[in-house]
């Protein structure tokens, strides 16, 4: 076994004995000195996770979050030095935890936390001039495919995740309990989650997948408010290209 394999073995496993060959600089065994590294690794990864999950922490409390984070980081340490991406697997992990089964919406709300961070670091882009859509004739508009900002992220859920996210961090009305689709949009540098109206999630999902505009808006159903969706996307500079 190499030196680093032996050193690594106990870092995320408190039951593992201190590796051999480590001293206090003289003849004494290293003992709890090794524990400093063990503690540094665990605490730094736990804190890195905590940075990314403000709403999850608000919903279950920091102490419970720390237990969840510790279990997750021991099972799934990061595979990249980019801590901004660490935690993308935490919502799936949360969904597997029996002790959180009574809060079935938690994983999907945590996905908003993940998406907010992804959006924050996503590439910059420029929204189209809103008058561009009005300048197209009907046939061209219906055939058009839209390009979207890399910072736009659509999340769909059977729970009222947008309302729960808002309530957990900003207070306000209690969540309704109705399913909600949420889109994260970043007009400049600060991402914001918006709750979509009836049918808008289906339409936006289709547009984002490259479906022509005319075909996509048919998916919204009779209560779908096209003007509201377009106003939102245009005001947040989310549409970056119209290919017709």
């Amino acid at each position, binding site marked *: 076994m190499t030196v680093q394999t032996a050193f690594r073995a106990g870092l995320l496993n408190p039951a593992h004995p201190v590796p051999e060959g480590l001293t206090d600089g003289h003849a004494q065994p290293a003992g709890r*000195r090794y524990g400093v590294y063990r503690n540094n690794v665990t605490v730094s990864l736990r804190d890195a996770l905590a940075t990314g999950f403000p709403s999850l922490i608000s919903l279950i409390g920091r102490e419970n979050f720390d237990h969840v984070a510790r279990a997750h980081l021991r099972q799934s340490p990061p595979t990249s*030095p980019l801590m901004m991406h660490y935690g993308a697997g935490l919502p799936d992990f949360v969904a597997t935890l029996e002790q959180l089964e009574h809060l079935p919406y938690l994983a999907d709300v945590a996905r908003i936390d993940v998406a907010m961070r992804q959006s924050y670091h996503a590439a910059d882009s420029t929204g189209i001039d809103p008058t561009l859509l009005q300048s197209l004739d009907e046939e061209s508009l219906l055939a058009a495919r839209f390009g979207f900002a890399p910072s736009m992220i659509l999340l769909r859920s059977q729970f009222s995740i947008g309302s729960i996210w808002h309530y957990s961090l900003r207070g306000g009305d209690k969540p309704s309990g109705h399913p909600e689709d949420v889109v994260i949009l970043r007009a400049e540098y600060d991402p914001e989650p918006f709750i979509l109206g009836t049918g808008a999630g289906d339409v936006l999902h289709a547009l984002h997948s490259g479906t022509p505009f005319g075909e996509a808006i048919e998916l919204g159903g009779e209560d779908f408010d096209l003007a509201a969706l377009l106003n939102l996307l245009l005001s947040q500079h989310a549409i970056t290209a119209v290919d017709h």
Partner: protein
Amino acid sequence: MPDASHAFPHLPHLPGVGYKAQHFTDIMTDPAPVGWLEIHAENYMGDGGRPLAQLRVLSERFPMSVHGVGLSIGGEGRLDPDHLARLKHLCDWLNPASFSEHLAWSTHDSHFLNDLLPLPYTSATLTRVADHIDEVQSLLGRRMLLENPSSYLAFAESTYSETDFLAEIVRRTGCGLLLDVNNVFVSATNLDYSPQGYIDAYPLDAVGEIHLGGHDEDEDDFGAPLLIDSHGREVVDPVWALLDYALAKSGPKPVLVEWDTDVPDWPVLADEARRASQALSRVLV
């Protein structure tokens, strides 16, 4: 976009601070006495957004130092080619006045452990670290600085002192050194040697930058003092004294105050930088 025309070729012999986004407005309004800034490379490897936008603005006004914390130069495995490519992209884009990394490892079997872990100082590890530094310098097309670690333990198998190990790395690779005097104080206390003796043996000619920061106090199983490098509070007086000791021998250098956890409001950090400025002015007299 930053390019060579904006670039500051060297870090000035002034105090710098580790840049934190919450200080952006303060720094742009009145940075005194801070003359340059250091960023952690990995925090600026996203695709866009506010971090890179702020960096673009800062780099037009201040000499910048890119300080990597994730390359795992002391690792047993090969350097991560994806991470090296990201580092090259950042350095080519920003054209910083300095790039530095640590004598430590943080990645093993593809897991990143987010800490600066220690290695034994032997002929084999020396060759490996030197090879890794050659690879980094060759890819980036620039000389890098290597920072001495904070140590909490030692390896029975080590055959080099840390200062001899660093001196030999400098000789083999032509890299420079980042002397962290807080790390010297922490390691010397923890492993029971003289911090001044360490500075005396250190290849000061190769130093391109000096760091200092705060540490926490604990003790080991036998009641011996065990200092923890935390970067979460003011620099203590004995570390300021060690800075004076090092500067008196090395001459003026760029001096950086690091404060990474429980980050204070700007005036507190600026006061620490002012203290570094006073230390530098004592050398110039």
